[in-house]
């Protein structure tokens, strides 16, 4: 145990010489967090213009309705109706400075009153099918509210909703937890990398290869230290999220660390193996970091895995992040104990054990062979 402690302290001293490594998990994740917050955290109403040629009252009532129909996404109206003259409106639409134009014909009120097939023209952006879809289904929300507002005979089926919490969890928060896990992963990878990189450029790998003792004495302190730094990086992001978005795991923090720590263990071993395969730790680290970024994007970093299981590719299931991310969301965002906690812990342990065994065996073999 004393030997382990001495080696651990030695590794820590090595790390202290290059503390910039700690930024490896922080800088990319901070940039990504800020970028996504700017992307999806602001007001997301579609800017449109309405050309109201209606001679009656319903056209104006419809325009007033736009402001009253609120999207759960950002608690803002689906549409933000801009005021501009007609020529400018068409010009703005052609240059994509607005999302769409609704044209209310002059006989709209008359036809609506007479039940004579009233129409509205909706010009809208469809450069991607997701935006086109939004226009189509947002227009249904507007009409739904408009019909209620003007007192048309009620719908054959009403609409009601039940949400399990008093307040809805927003999308940026969902993404932020994906970033916490990415931070743990990158923090672990970068710190493992710097510890082995230092050993390589200091030619200590040769001494390691010739060591009469088990190389576990070398690898265990590195792994523990890298895992610790990964968890510290992740915790820093949890604090950022607490301050910024207001979510904190509270008593569940230990469970969060356990889940994230098991994920980090997997990636730390991957970083070690890649570094040795490439015979160049930097290339290995770059490969692992970019690999982790890809897994962040495809493995539930941007949305809940459980709610989009059909969209998760089989490759994502080969990595522990995909299993762990929703559980961390349960603990941090929903403050609820995940139903599948035990089964996921077993899977993550399996990933970690497999990675440690495979990674250690491979690393020991490489070090003994190459030094």
């Amino acid at each position, binding site marked *: 145990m004393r030997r382990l402690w001495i080696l651990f302290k030695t590794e820590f001293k090595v790390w202290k010489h290059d503390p910039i490594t700690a930024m490896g998990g922080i800088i990319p994740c901070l940039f990504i967090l800020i970028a996504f917050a700017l*992307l999806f955290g602001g007001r997301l109403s579609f800017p449109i213009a309405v050309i109201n040629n209606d001679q009656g009252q319903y056209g104006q009532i419809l325009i007033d309705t736009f402001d009253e129909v609120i999207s759960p*996404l950002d608690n803002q109206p689906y549409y933000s109706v801009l005021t501009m003259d007609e020529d400018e409106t068409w010009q703005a639409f052609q240059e994509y400075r607005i999302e769409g134009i609704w044209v209310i014909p002059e006989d709209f009120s008359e036809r609506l009153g007479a039940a*004579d097939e009233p129409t509205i023209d*909706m010009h809208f952006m469809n450069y991607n*099918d997701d935006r086109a879809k939004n226009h189509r289904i947002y227009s249904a929300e507007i009409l739904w509210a408009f019909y209620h507002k003007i007192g048309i005979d009620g719908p054959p089926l009403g609409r009601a909703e039940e949400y399990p919490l008093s307040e809805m969890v927003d999308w940026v928060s969902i993404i932020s937890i994906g970033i916490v896990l990415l931070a743990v992963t990158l923090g672990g990878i970068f710190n493992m990398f710097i510890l082995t990189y230092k050993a390589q450029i200091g030619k200590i790998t040769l001494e390691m290869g010739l060591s009469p003792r088990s190389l576990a004495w070398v690898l265990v302190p590195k792994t523990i230290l890298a895992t610790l730094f990964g968890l510290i990086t992740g915790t820093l992001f949890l604090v950022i999220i607490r301050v910024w978005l207001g979510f904190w795991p509270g008593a569940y923090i230990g469970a969060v660390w356990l889940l994230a720590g098991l994920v980090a263990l997997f990636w730390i071993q991957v970083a070690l193996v890649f570094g040795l395969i490439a015979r160049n730790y930097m*290339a290995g680290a770059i490969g692992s970091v970019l690999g982790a970024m890809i897994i962040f994007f495809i493995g539930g970093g941007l949305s809940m895995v459980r709610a989009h299981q059909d969209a998760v590719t089989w490759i994502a299931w080969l990595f522990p992040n995909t299993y762990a991310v929703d559980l961390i969301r349960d603990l941090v965002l929903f403050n609820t104990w995940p139903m599948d906690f035990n089964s996921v812990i077993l899977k993550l342990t399996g990933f970690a054990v497999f990675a440690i065994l495979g990674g250690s065996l491979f690393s020991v073999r490489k070090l003994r062979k190459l030094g």
Partner: protein
Amino acid sequence: MKRYILLLRSEFKLFLTAPVVHLIAIVQPTLMYVLMSIIMVVPTFEMRLMNPTTKQGENLLAAAEQVGSPIGPDYIEPVLVEDASPGHRQVVQVVEIDGTPTALQRYGYIDSNLVKNLRNRLTAALMVLWNNELGSQGILIQEHPWLPQDIPYTVYFGMAMIPLAGYLAAAMIGSYLMAQEFENGTILSYKLCPTSFRLILAAKITRLVVTSLAAAIILYITLGLITGVWSTSLIAILVILLPLILIASCIGLIAGMLTRSALPSFLIALASAFAFWLLGSGFGLAAGFSPLFEIISRLIPNTPVIEMMFPYFYFGKKVAAQPLLVNLQLTAYVLGLLIAVGFIYKKRILSKER
């Protein structure tokens, strides 16, 4: 010229010192695009509906199947279930509330974006029923889409990743190789070199530009093969990319010279590449997001580049309102960074103090 070609050749030979880094930097965005195109957001959503036992339930199911684009896919894929529990997503059940038949949507622990999407789809289905009942009193929305067909999101996403591919390759390889010169001590040869530093930097940047264009072309071909959509001119796309690649090359070289260490310079290249991608219209044209986002996005070089590339993929439709201003902006970035690279090169490499 002969000296420049010799320098260029030696720059290309540097590939042999870091083949894995080159491979990763060139191929990573393409790999990411391939994987993300599989899971890319699609308009068709699974919606869990309780197996209908009443006429209203059957009507709702029929209406749900009608919700979709007349020139694209359906928006609802109903999944019939027997359990009224929302599970991890949601479920719709027709119930009586205060004597009124109502489609009750119960959500699981999901986020506001998913709630929005599910709510909108249910409303659209209910509106089909309501309009059917209203008959000639129901309002018909006549659709006039901007383009003749709804373009899959994978096309835009891939197009917006082409600048990322170009940027990442230039910034990462530039920063890594520059830092390596310091770490390996070969920087001394630059210091002692009798050739003009401008010629050396020109060779370095030219080499990065060629490598980055290769990365961009690989992604461009992959995008075409996956979506079947090709730009009307590849040459135009590459020309448009040039300023961004020059910017990335300069940022990479500056990072390498300032940090003199592979790891932090890699971090700068990585973080700037992904931040520029995300903020620079990577997920959609800047005008489609919040006003604050649009302002920030327009400062990022990716946004004007994407807006200039747009017409070549989208039936010639132009979205850049101020082309002259955009060109001036990119030119200013490039010139500013080229001057900065020369200045830092002199300070960090040629200075006698070092």
